[in-house]
């Protein structure tokens, strides 16, 4: 393992401290329990709080700020945060219209946020994101995983919340956007959890992991490395097939997010974007908005995911509205 580290146990706090210093105009760091809030508390809106294991930066702390989240609770690397963090964050940012938790669908995150919701005394609700089409939905499983589509949910829901929408409206819109998102990831390498010191999985030079999750958890299947266009074709087809099976129509166009897992250069991400846009053209699907970059990462994994969000006028309006966070900034 070759990483920038002082003491392995200090990685998280040192990184959070650097993040807060670098973006002191936007965010404020609170320690023990750890959470990030906006530098200036909002008023009279539903307070949006997300959180999850660290190692996916800029998700979620990088999306705290005007137009997106009110607070984020970072757990240890790939480990759900705990209820005391969520309760402290809720107390700090609640401003009269209740608290909405945005939670990626993983057993640990769901349970910790559930316990926080049970202990919280103010009105609250939860939107679960589960956009990963790689994991087949089945009544026998905890269901699909929440991955990069979460960024689109947090951006658009953040915008709606700024308008003063109430808790029920926010929940309904968040669920709608989540349902209209589909994501598929592919890994070229494993990632290495710093405290473990070893790669999470072994993968040969000529292999890719199709349908990989954002923690290096294996996906649909191990395949041979092929030309990028072929890989993208399979990813787009997987998402469109999923849309079809859930009666989601991309006829009004899509938001296309090509998300890097951190170790793949932007150059390759744009190459993937080129391939994806060709694929979508062949399917007669218009790209309404685009985002390319590292937004939901997996430590030092090489690879990428493609997210499509079947958009409509309401979703595009909230996508375009001003946002001022460390990770996304436009319209201001």
């Amino acid at each position, binding site marked *: 393992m070759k990483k920038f580290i002082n003491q392995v146990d200090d990685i998280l706090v040192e990184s959070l401290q650097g993040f807060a210093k670098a973006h002191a105009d936007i965010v404020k760091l609170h320690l023990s329990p750890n959470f990030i809030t906006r530098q200036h508390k909002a008023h009279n809106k539903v307070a949006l709080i997300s959180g999850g294991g660290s190692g996916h930066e800029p998700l979620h702390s990088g999306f705290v700020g005007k137009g997106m989240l009110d607070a984020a609770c970072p757990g240890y*690397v790939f480990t759900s945060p*705990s209820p005391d963090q969520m309760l402290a964050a809720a107390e700090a940012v609640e401003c009269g219209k209740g608290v909405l938790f945005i939670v990626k669908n993983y057993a*640990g995150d769901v349970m910790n946020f559930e316990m926080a919701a049970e202990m919280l005394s103010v009105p609250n609700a939860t939107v679960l994101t589960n956009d990963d089409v790689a994991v087949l939905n*089945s009544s026998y499983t*905890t269901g699909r995983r929440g991955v990069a589509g979460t960024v689109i949910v947090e951006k658009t829901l953040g915008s709606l919340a700024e308008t003063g929408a109430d808790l029920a409206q926010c929940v309904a819109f968040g669920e709608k956007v989540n349902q209209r998102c589909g994501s598929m990831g592919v890994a070229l390498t494993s990632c290495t959890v710093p405290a473990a010191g070893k790669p999470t999985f072994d993968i040969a030079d000529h292999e890719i992991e199709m349908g990989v999750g954002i923690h290096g958890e294996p996906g649909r299947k191990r395949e041979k490395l092929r030309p990028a266009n072929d890989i993208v074709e399979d990813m787009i087809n997987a998402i469109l097939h999923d849309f079809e099976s859930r009666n989601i129509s991309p006829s009004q166009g899509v938001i296309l997010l090509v998300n890097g897992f951190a170790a793949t250069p932007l150059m390759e991400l744009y190459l993937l974007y080129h391939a994806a846009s060709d694929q979508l053209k062949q399917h007669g699907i218009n790209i309404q908005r685009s985002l390319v970059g590292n937004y939901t990462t997996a430590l030092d994994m090489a690879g990428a995911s493609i997210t499509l969000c079947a958009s409509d006028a309401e979703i595009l309006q909230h996508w375009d509205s001003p946002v001022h966070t460390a990770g996304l900034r436009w319209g201001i």
Partner: protein
Amino acid sequence: MQTSFIVQAIQSVYQDVLTHEADIEKLDREIGDGDHYINLKRGCQTLQQLCPELAELTAQQALQKIGMTLLSSVGGASGPLLASFFITMAKTLQPTASQKDIALAFAEGVAAIGQRGKSGLGEKTMLDVLIPVAEQFKQMVSDGHSALEIAQQLPHVAAEGLESTRPLLATKGRAAGLGERAIGHLDAGAKSCEVIINSVCRLVIAQQNSEQ
């Protein structure tokens, strides 16, 4: 149950978790995401630091404190699951805990894990170890077996439970995304529970032997 036993059990479990680092990590890397051992170790360390404070409490208070501490220190799925176990056990345990009361409180704690995780037997989780152990514990107590006999028997039940996860599909937790590829691997959470049960049982055996 004496608080002094709880404090000794924490020391014993911590040592055994450290000893089994390689086994637990390997399993979690194979079909999980590699964080289980680290989280478990952090929980054990936090509890160990808390031991002087725990020693001043009643057994019930200590179990409650352990639960709340694990909830805020472990994170992941294990945090709320282990916390639910200890908090429920604290609620259920009578101050004059007989062996039977302890067995019942243990079973209630295991049931609370099932409720929190919305899971049961056969889903390739820690419950595949804990449910059979809880059943056997209750059964042996009602059949009038001694603490020594129970502590000698339960590790075998835990080992069988662990082994039972090998052919299973995972339907809960991170391994659920693997489909059939999880088959043939033991579950890391089941492994750590087996380590913990072994550790506590060994402590009971040592104490019983020294009393005789």
